[in-house]
């Protein structure tokens, strides 16, 4: 039924009709009519962030931890440009967020008006799609279409730019449309012929491995359940990308740990030596493959992905299956069972023996210390003291992120929020706020580095304002640890600008924000300090002072293959040649 409403009213109505309960935003001149409507209602909660980048990352945290789209409302010009990093982050990691930006009135567009920016032009390459609304009559449909686009197919960020006069004018509003109303409708079902080929490969595999990614998480909880069913039924080993952690439980018998540049020895060696690779919702990113011409040279590859452009983009595969992970896995399991549920059990048992030998290398070992806190030890203790809790973990980007991925175990999907594709320092603090908003009673931890934390720490004000008990667990090595590690390995130990000088006192900083600060620099005190952090009912900044020069291992040096991993300090001499140094 059509109704006549103002543009600003249509925005709120459409959000409510989409089931939106939370908007992360920051007001400004060009969105004031919409803020006026927010003021008049109580269905949608507005969370005032401290910077528009924070709004976008908070919406990402909300989306990653719930599977529902996150919503952002910011003003024109600088409001929109500040959100660009969050949009790009969401595009790279396929996170559904809907960003509403104000715009100068239509009759002023192009005149270099105050706080005018070509928002749709700027964000065209960093959104899945975007719209400039010039007619209030179209506003409602565009918002509904935006939600459809953000959440269907390969999810991603969308942006709707709404000029101020469109917000004031009245127009016709229709409710949400059925999804087949829109011309954009990516296929979900896999090609049965290809699925049959994949099943035949699974039946004949002697050295198989599942290589899974964020696509499993994005497909929904059913995809994780089906993946677990298939892994348990076949008995094949499974590894995952950074984005896919939690789809298969870390405590599962077939888990090899994360793969890739800082993945485990056993995961990478299994990838290198496998004869059948079953890639589910992952995209052969350069952090995963290492040197391409030496990537898993002897394997036949199955690739399940909903995005046609992910298939054969980097690595040519033998059996591409275009479709939704859950749909394809369901068909695959059904067909495999129908054909007798066969595997080459003897060969797979022998393959497991080989994998156990690789596991025995104990690739995550490090030199312990009772004098200074080793960063790995800090994460291990954090893991041990929070395991089994209703826990969500965010990270920033760098060494601490890799250690968190290596040493924390995720049993369920949507429990791990990290910036993978874009590698955005400053992601974690606002993301943890978005997660806590969606899960008010859960334990939300942001594993951070001190440098990343400083990039978006103003959002602690948001945490305090909304009484969000997020725990900021900072591994403070007073270094840009990953940059420093690369400079050590690649640039002759010339540590150009990779240390954090003039750091704030994080305890005082916490107190200045009105939250709790804890500092710990002694391994003997660490457990008590973590317990104190967990016991505190409000937000905490935990300054964990760790070893300054620890390197993150194992590591596949750039330009090298999976079977050329560095396992520890002793093996780093001349590890990276000039060719590798060019790569990032």
């Amino acid at each position: 039924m059509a109704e006549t409403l103002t543009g600003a009213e249509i925005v709120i109505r459409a959000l409510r009709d989409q089931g939106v309960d939370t908007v992360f935003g920051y007001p400004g001149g060009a969105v004031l009519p919409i803020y006026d409507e927010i003021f008049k209602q109580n269905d949608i909660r507005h969370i005032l962030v401290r910077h528009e980048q924070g709004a976008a990352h908070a919406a990402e945290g909300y989306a990653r931890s719930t599977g529902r789209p996150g919503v952002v409302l910011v003003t024109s010009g600088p409001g929109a440009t500040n959100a660009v990093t969050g949009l790009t982050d969401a595009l790279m990691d396929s996170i559904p967020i809907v960003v509403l930006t104000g715009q100068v009135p239509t009759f002023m567009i192009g005149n270099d008006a105050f706080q005018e920016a070509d928002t749709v032009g700027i964000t065209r390459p960093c959104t899945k799609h975007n719209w400039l609304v010039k007619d209030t009559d179209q506003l409602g449909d565009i918002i509904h279409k935006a939600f459809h686009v953000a959440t269907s197919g390969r999810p991603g960020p969308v942006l709707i730019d709404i000029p101020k006069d469109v917000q004031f004018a009245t127009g016709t509003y229709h409710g949400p449309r059925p999804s087949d109303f829109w011309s954009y409708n990516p296929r979900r079902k896999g090609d049965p012929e290809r699925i049959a080929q994949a099943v035949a490969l699974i039946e004949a595999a002697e050295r198989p491995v599942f290589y899974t990614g964020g696509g499993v998480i994005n497909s929904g909880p059913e995809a994780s359940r089906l993946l677990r069913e298939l892994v348990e039924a076949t008995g094949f080993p499974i590894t995952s990308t950074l984005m896919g952690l939690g789809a298969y439980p870390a405590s599962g018998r077939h888990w090899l740990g994360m793969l890739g540049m800082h993945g485990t020895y056993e995961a990478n060696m299994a990838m290198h030596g496998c004869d059948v690779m079953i890639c589910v919702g992952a995209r052969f990113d350069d952090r995963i493959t290492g040197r391409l011409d030496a990537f898993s040279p002897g394997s036949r590859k199955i690739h399940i992905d909903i995005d046609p452009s992910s298939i054969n983009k980097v690595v040519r595969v033998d059996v591409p299956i275009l479709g939704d992970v859950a749909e394809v896995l369901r068909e695959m399991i059904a067909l495999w069972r129908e054909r007798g549920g066969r595997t080459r059990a003897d060969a797979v048992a022998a393959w497991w023996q080989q994998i156990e030998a690789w596991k025995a290398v104990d690739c995550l070992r490090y030199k312990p210390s009772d004098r200074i806190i080793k960063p790995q030890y800090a994460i291990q203790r954090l893991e041990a003291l929070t395991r089994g809790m209703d826990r969500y973990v965010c990270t920033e980007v760098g060494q601490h992120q890799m250690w968190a991925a290596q040493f924390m175990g995720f049993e369920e999907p949507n429990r791990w929020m990290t910036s993978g594709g874009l590698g955005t320092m400053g992601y974690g603090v606002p993301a943890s706020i978005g997660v806590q908003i969606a899960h008010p009673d859960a334990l939300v931890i942001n594993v951070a580095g001190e440098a990343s934390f400083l990039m978006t720490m103003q959002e602690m004000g948001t945490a305090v304002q909304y009484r969000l008990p997020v725990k900021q667990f900072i591994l403070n090595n007073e270094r840009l640890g990953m940059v420093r590690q690369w400079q050590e390995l690649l640039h002759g130990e010339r540590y150009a600008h990779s240390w954090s000088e003039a750091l704030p006192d994080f305890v005082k900083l916490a107190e200045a924000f009105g939250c709790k600060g804890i500092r710990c620099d002694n391994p003997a005190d660490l457990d008590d300090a973590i317990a104190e952090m967990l016991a505190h009912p409000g937000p905490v900044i935990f300054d964990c002072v760790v070893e300054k020069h620890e390197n993150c291992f194992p590591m596949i040096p750039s330009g090298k293959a999976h079977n050329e991993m560095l396992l520890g300090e002793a093996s780093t001499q001349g590890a990276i040649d000039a060719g590798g140094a060019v790569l990032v």
Partner: protein
Amino acid sequence: MNALHIKPGSSAHSAYDLRSNLDERQERHTIAVLVDNEAGVLARVIGLFSARGYNIDSLTVAEVDHRSHLSRITVVTTGTPEVIDQIKAQLSRMVCVHDVHDLTVEAPHVERELALVKVAGKGQDRVEAMRLSEVFRARVVDTTLESFVFEVSGTSEKIDAFIELMRPLGLVNIARTGIVAITRGPGKLEKRQD
């Protein structure tokens, strides 16, 4: 396989060719893309090509269905078979794209380009230009006592050849449409399911 060999300096070189080793496996494909005729749609398609380093040898666009606001973009591109596949996949996943057809592999097709060519001159050169235009079945669409505007259509090679012949005869300006293409026979291109 359509193999037109356009001379360097005409239209075969994109401003956005970021790849250094152009190997022999480079193929030239004509791709028809049906898109929503909405604001910024051309920028989206061109932005895709420039951001990912693909070539655009020729690109034409016009609305072909006024009722449902659909435009047809005909893009001619060059790349290895892997790059061509990527281009099609990247195009087909765009929200504003309804359909992508690689005419080079899907069906026999005709390609045509139209050019307006202005030639100024007097005396023998003017007579010769007129005589040659008849050979090329070009039409005169504007004339003064000392100039012609010829309209010539055909393959890009034919237009190249015509332009080369006009050059010594007083060529002033050229306007070319870029290539448009359509399949042969009565069939309509069906929506691709892949």
